[in-house]
């Protein structure tokens, strides 16, 4: 029962389609992407700037987080822990003061200097993971200064050592860190499943367009994921 076929990609005109794909259910980790206060608390981080200059984004984005992303991740987290699946967190931000961890000539350093950036220092409250879904002491937290953890952490080596083949990916933003993570995992041969209603972009259009470009990853909602993985036995929580 551990191996199960799941639906994979939608038909592509003129191309062979991988309709379904067999995965080994226990070899799965939940990857919670950048659910930090700077991106989720309207009073902090990107919040005040969005409210002042981009009110439409502000309205859409923070309601999506409150109505589906946070509740979705809470359900996923409780479910994953109850089935013995690893939960792994990423946090993004400046790892050294004044962004000395960024190449000085790079657009990222320019963005960090600009004051309109969306990357916060490691010692700030913006950097902290939302308390409601905080990692437990035995769970892995990866600090990165890039969109995909494959570019600035040892995630590839860690996942291989942990025997993880499948990733349930949830968090922010659908078209930036979530998509970059799903793309780099899928392109390396993992089976990434983006849990779409537990992710948000700055607009519904960007969110949906991103799901439509899925390249070597697939998208499912929280209910579908819980349905598939319910085949796993419950475990005693640590």
């Amino acid at each position: 029962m551990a191996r199960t076929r799941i639906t994979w990609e939608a038909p592509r005109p003129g191309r062979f389609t991988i309709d379904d794909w067999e995965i080994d259910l226990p070899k799965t980790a939940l990857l919670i992407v950048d659910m930090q206060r700077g991106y989720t608390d309207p009073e902090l981080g990107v919040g005040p700037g969005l409210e002042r200059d981009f009110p439409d984004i502000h309205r859409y984005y923070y309601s999506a987080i409150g109505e589906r992303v946070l509740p979705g991740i809470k359900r996923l987290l409780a479910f994953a822990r109850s089935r013995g699946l690893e939960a792994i967190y990423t946090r993004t931000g400046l790892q050294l003061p004044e962004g000395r961890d960024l190449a000085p000539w790079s657009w990222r350093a320019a963005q960090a200097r600009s004051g309109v950036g969306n990357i916060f220092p490691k010692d700030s409250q913006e950097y902290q993971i939302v308390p409601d879904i905080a990692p437990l002491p035995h769970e892995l937290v990866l600090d990165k200064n890039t969109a995909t953890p494959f570019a600035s952490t040892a995630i590839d080596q860690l996942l291989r050592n942990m025997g993880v083949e499948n990733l349930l990916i949830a968090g922010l933003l659908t078209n930036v860190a979530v998509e970059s993570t799903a793309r780099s995992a899928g392109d390396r041969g993992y089976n990434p499943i983006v849990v779409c209603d537990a992710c948000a972009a700055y607009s519904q259009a960007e969110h949906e367009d991103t799901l439509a470009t899925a390249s070597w990853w697939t998208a499912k909602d929280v209910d579908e994921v819980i349905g598939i993985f319910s085949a796993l036995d419950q475990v005693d929580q640590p």
Partner: protein
Amino acid sequence: MKGVIPWQANSTWPHAVRELEIDLGKTGLVMVDVQNYSEKNAAIVPECVRLRDFFHRHGLEVIYLRVGSLLPGRRDMHAKRALSWMKPPGDVPAMVVHPGTWNHDVVDDLAPEPGELVIDKNSSGAFNSSGIERYLQAMGLQNLVFCGAATSRCVDNTARGAADRGYNVILVEDACIDPVQRNHCTTVRTFGDAFGAVKTTDEVLADLGTLAAGTPASIAGGE
């Protein structure tokens, strides 16, 4: 020649960087998978030729990426890719694309010259399946101009990979092509918001041409 060029000038992204100082001498052109296996690539060849000619004229690096299996039989590819890549529907064999086949060659009009770097990869993103990072570093590159195919797959994956690692990436929208127009537009939008600059071939030649002429706005305008 160093100078300031418009960066995410037209982006509506809240975190856009409007202009950026770049060093033309540390700029390379990355030509993604403009190979014989897809006839559709013909549509972007003229723009790619204009870009390549500019880089050659100014003594700048041009790097050619080629996608395919590295080994016949695809046993080097990840399982889903080995099963489906360049395969028509039904019980029809996939196209054979590996080094040594005509399908795998870069199209004639853009054939790499002796002394230019050609990198073979067996996945979408060069950072996932080649040693490109070491080469870019050793060549001293900081800025990369991207053209090629397909916009939402190999170009997007590799360009994101480069932008994420700190390279200043310009994606040349009319020198990239995707079989699905919606996907082309999605990549162009997200990339031009969150990862780098998106420009037309004309804009790239004008911006970089200004730097080559040694009269960038930042110097011409003052000091």
